[in-house]
């Protein structure tokens, strides 16, 4: 297998693994946060607005890790420096 094929295979496989494994943790965490928020809304319905707003801000924070994994996957697929380098060498 020449290096171009190897890079392509490695990039594709690692991009898939990156986003699939990386989104498990944040999804579980967000589900937990949502469950707790629903619990507290049931206990104190008057504070629904504050609880909802805090929930959204917290979810945005927790989602950051999933976003970092997504960015790495996108870079591997669409802006892969190794692929571009070897492609330019083949072409040039």
């Amino acid at each position, binding site marked *: 297998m020449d290096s171009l094929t190897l890079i392509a295979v490695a990039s594709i496989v690692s991009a898939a693994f990156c986003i699939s494994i990386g989104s498990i943790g944040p999804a579980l965490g967000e589900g937990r946060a949502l469950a707790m928020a629903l619990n507290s809304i049931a206990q104190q319905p008057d504070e629904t*607005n*504050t609880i909802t707003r805090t929930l*959204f*801000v917290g979810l*945005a924070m927790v*989602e*950051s890790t999933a*976003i*970092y994994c997504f*960015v790495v996957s996108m870079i591997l697929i669409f802006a892969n420096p190794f692929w571009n380098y070897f492609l330019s060498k083949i072409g040039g």
Partner: protein
Amino acid sequence: MRLSPDSIVFFENTFIPLNGTILFTWLVMALLTLGSWFVTRRLSTGPHVPRWQNLIEIIITLLLGQIREVTRQEPRPFLPFIGTLFIFIAVCNLLSIIPGFQAPTGSLSTTAGLAICVMVAVPLFGIQDSGVGAYLKNYIKPTPMMLPFNVIGEISRTLALAVRLFGNVMSSGMIGGILLAIAPLIFPVIMQMLGLLTGIVQAYIFAILAAVYIAAGLQVHEEQAAKVEKS
């Protein structure tokens, strides 16, 4: 497969490329500006309020309420910036239901620009509120060893703001395109409805996070005011 409106190129010069993102952004800007100008030409405070003025008043009242609750301060100084963020992103995402319109927030350039605006606005509001020295002391607040972590935290939350909005809008557009090839007729419509919902939610999250970051930079002022009140 088109990833973002950046790849629709209308006109290419050595200086200024005109691609789809810029064109659609201009469209949204023109729509918002002309629409607001038309509505506010004849404002009335009487018992009979025209319906578009009513709509704009509702939006402004909601925004003021949300900013007041998040920042726990007078919301007027923050309304132009945070209100514009929310309304621009919401209109961009909502207009994606029009065929042929690609939401400019589906391009990393737009969302990065908006996130950089927030990153610049946080120190601006903080310095305007409490002075340069007091604001910069915020960075060494718990201990001076936290300085690199605070700076890295600022940069990473800006990056997260940009990529969160970009990822949500781009993926909702892309999944519609993919589903059209697999299961047309009903399912893409449902996914488009979900795309509208996430568009509004992401606009709200962007604006509220901007308000939270700005309010966090203002904390110094609020504690000092509380101390002055107690003494």
